[in-house]
């Protein structure tokens, strides 16, 4: 059932396990880019970058489009959204928790400084 709902998740995680590919996604999050410019940016051969892009494309994380002689890459929708949304939900939740925890810890510290609360 999960597979039906999220066909690209499994592939996404394989795709995300590589540091360069995560970098490429980050880069594409800022702006679309050609494979050539990505190869330059990550100091690798065009062939090497093409392989990374192929993995990202299979997972649905990236889509490419050839216009004239240039193949442009941009972020795909599904896989990334599912994982990114999940991570972001955790980050928001824990940030809210930990900000509240900070306040409690501050209280505890002040209590320690002042001795027992009801002394």
């Amino acid at each position, binding site marked *: 059932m*999960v597979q039906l*709902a*999220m066909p690209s*998740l*499994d592939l996404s*995680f394989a795709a*995300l396990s590589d540091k360069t590919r995560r970098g490429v996604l980050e880069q594409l999050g800022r702006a679309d880019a050609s494979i050539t410019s990505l190869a330059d940016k990550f100091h690798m051969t065009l062939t090497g970058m093409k392989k990374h892009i192929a993995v990202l494309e299979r997972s649905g994380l990236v889509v490419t489009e050839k216009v004239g002689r240039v193949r442009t890459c941009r972020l795909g929708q599904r896989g990334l*959204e*599912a*994982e990114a*949304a*999940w*991570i972001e*939900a*955790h*980050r*928001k*939740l*824990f*940030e*809210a*928790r*930990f*900000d*509240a*925890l*900070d*306040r*409690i*810890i*501050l209280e*505890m*510290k*002040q209590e*320690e400084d002042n001795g027992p609360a009801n002394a």
Partner: protein
Amino acid sequence: MDQRTHNHPVAQNPTEVERKSDRELVVTRLFDAPPQLVFRAWAEPELFRRWWVPKDAGIMLVSCEMDVRTGGTYRLEFGAGGNDTMAFHGKYLEVVPSARIVWTNEEEEQGAVTTVTFEDQGGKTLLTFHELYPSKEALDEAMAGSAAGLPTQLDQLDELLPAIGA
């Protein structure tokens, strides 16, 4: 609150979330207090219940029973204002005061095992919250659950509930 302005930078310490492998999620955060203090806020129910559920989450902790010692159990019940509650429960597999708490999440068959560690860093505490799912499929399912499309007012609850069980 003046003391805060003096002793603490205005910006909060950043909360890092990382999917460490296909079965693991890791959250890290630095706290400006020693481990024994931060640990207490996790181990004493009356402190824990004051921060575990964010105020603006639209849900409340209805009850909070925690026996934080190795072999002890916990049960947290949440409600959204109506009569329905949702319970999260499990067992503490390992509790080392000021250092480590490990618990199971048994409301789901394929629930994660959560490990929280408190690491002393010169009087501060590096806190690591680590979830290990029994399989990749279990984590995918948790993720698919939280990513499922729901009406807007339920979005927040949906994002929150899987993680609160964690």
